[in-house]
């Protein structure tokens, strides 16, 4: 009797184990800043990624999803590479997502190349990252992608003389180069290229220089937070708008900072791929899903980058039946095309970067007096102009 019971128990145990093996979940490692001055990016990405899985009923392509969160901190390539290595070797993740800073994103290239782990970049915006490994896909944007339409808009408005004013570090110089290249191609002239030290707190001198230059518009690139607020304040206080100098930005009126500008932001023009106030069914569903997941999350480009990144991972899981097969997953990802909260998007098979609309937006007062980025014009299906020139 005792023997029989043992046999039965063993048999049950075996069946149970097989069942457990079948229901094993797909592991997704997310690297994003969860502490320090950039922690809000991590929080927004987490909200976006979790909201996506919840919106699909908690499973992607029938598989349970197990997230492994890792803290990117700040710009620190060596550390990020170690994190990626640990995710692949120790946690045995099937996919990696996230990464805010470009140097960090580039640093994981050898890890994902060797282990054939698809990596979906939710934010890092330097063009050449995706050329460094065959396993990168990007669902954010690049500076070239949003800046080329900015130059086209300036040319179309008949501007001949434009000043560029950028923060003096790699992305700023990238933005300056992109604007100059496209604007001069269209017959305009960048009369002055001002590079503002990263630690600038008083932007009044730059505003005065722009005013004195006699330009018709100023193309601006600034990192988010205090520099952004400082520049816009200086732009208003020194009467650049009254002088008729149009403000042309990209991420400057991002939803994360937007309400802090107050009325001084009204009328600012930016060109960007996503506005939280976009009027579409897909966007409304997205906003509702994120709000349900995390009431405090701000709907902006970081949230939507994570949401669409999870969509790509979803489709890769579908194509591989939940098994670990980096090449098959990548082949599937390259043909993707879907309706994102930001509008129609697709993955460019060559650059593995997202092809998307870029919108001309103006800051307006929306419902309840909150400031919004109102989309007024569409530049359809923009590729990454940094790689596809």
């Amino acid at each position, binding site marked *: 009797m005792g023997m029989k019971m043992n046999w039965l128990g063993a048999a049950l145990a075996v069946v149970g184990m097989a069942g457990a093996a079948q229901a094993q979940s797909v592991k997704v490692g997310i690297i994003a800043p969860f502490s320090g001055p950039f922690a*809000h990016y991590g929080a927004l990405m987490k909200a976006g990624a979790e909201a996506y899985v919840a919106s699909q009923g908690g499973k992607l392509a029938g598989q349970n999803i197990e997230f492994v969160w890792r803290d990117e901190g700040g710009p620190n390539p060596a550390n990020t590479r170690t994190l990626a290595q640990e995710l692949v070797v120790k946690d045995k993740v099937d996919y990696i997502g996230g990464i805010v800073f470009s140097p960090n994103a580039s640093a994981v290239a050898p890890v994902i190349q060797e282990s054939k782990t698809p990596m979906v970049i939710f934010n890092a915006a330097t063009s050449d990252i995706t050329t460094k490994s065959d396993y990168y896909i990007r669902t954010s944007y690049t500076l070239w992608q949003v800046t080329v339409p900015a130059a086209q808009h300036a040319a179309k408005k008949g501007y001949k003389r434009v000043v560029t004013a950028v923060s003096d570090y790699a992305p700023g110089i990238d933005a300056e180069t992109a604007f100059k290249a496209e604007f001069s191609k269209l017959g305009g002239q960048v009369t002055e290229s001002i590079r503002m*030290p990263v630690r600038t707190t008083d932007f009044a001198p730059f505003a005065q220089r722009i005013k004195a230059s006699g330009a018709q518009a100023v193309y601006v690139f600034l990192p988010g937070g205090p520099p952004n607020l400082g520049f816009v304040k200086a732009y208003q206080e020194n009467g650049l708008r009254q002088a008729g100098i149009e403000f042309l930005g990209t991420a400057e009126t991002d939803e*994360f900072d937007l309400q802090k500008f107050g009325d001084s932001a009204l009328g600012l023009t930016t060109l960007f791929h996503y506005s939280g106030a976009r009027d579409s069914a897909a966007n409304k569903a997205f906003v509702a899903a994120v709000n349900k997941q995390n009431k405090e999350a701000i709907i902006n480009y970081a949230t939507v980058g994570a949401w669409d990144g999870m969509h790509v991972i979803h489709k890769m899981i579908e194509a591989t039946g939940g098994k670990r097969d980096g090449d098959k997953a990548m082949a599937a990802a390259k043909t993707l095309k879907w309706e994102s909260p930001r509008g129609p998007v697709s993955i460019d098979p060559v650059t593995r970067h997202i092809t998307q609309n870029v919108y001309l937006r103006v800051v307006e007062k929306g419902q309840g007096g909150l400031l919004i980025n109102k989309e007024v014009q569409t530049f359809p299906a923009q590729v990454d102009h940094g790689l596809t020139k």
Partner: protein
Amino acid sequence: MTLLANILIDGIAYGMVLFIISVGLSITLGLMRFVNLAHGAFAMTGGYLAAWLVGAQGWPFGWGLLAAVVLTGLLGAVLEALVLRRLYRRSELEQVLFTIGLTFLFVATANLLAGPEVQLIPLPAWLKTPVDLGIRTLPAQRLLVIAAGLAVLALSALVLGRSRFGIWLRATVDNTGAAAALGIPVKWVYAATFGVGAALAGLGGILGAELMPLEPYYPIKYLVLVLVVVAVGGMGSITGSAVAALALGTIETASKYLASDWGSLFFFLSMALFLAWRPQGLLVARRA
């Protein structure tokens, strides 16, 4: 000519902001000889309190500013009496480590209570309107900062040089034992002075917020800037701090107009030259 005027106007305005955010430190570090790297934390506290009182509670700007400054001063005095007092006889390294630790505590608390976003102190309409100076306009807020800077300068010179309290303070800092033996209430003098230093830091946080926006990392971000001003101005010399702030502010502004590609090179280069020329401070002649 316009360029020169622009440099001077923006330079003085910026220099006064530098002075107002550093003056509290030139008291705690300069006069009291306490390595107070938590200065920025007090400045941030003042700013956050004002943002909360004026923004969320709807107080008038003037009252909000006054209350925030007083509360920051009280916090400084209490901290001095409870904790910081024990550090005066410790080594400078221990003071550095403690006050940096205190700063991190403030950073985390600000993050916890108000989140990572920038906090704004809503300005009343009369401070928002640009003032016409004839050749160009300047925001009224900047004029308020200049006026406040001059007022602080005059008041501190008066209190330190002419009042009984000033005599007590100088005596206490020079020789605590002898001062106590003479009947000076040294504990009270220290707590009050630190409180005033913290209150001035808070004032700087509030008035400087237009250029240095308040956010949780504020105390660390602008620490170098205020240390430079106090070091160049000379320990304990508030007038020196003012001269240093105006000189450095004008140099920084000129470099933004004329050679912005060089970044902050001229700011730090002139700091190095000033320190080589007058290691004890701008207004103190080199001691043999």
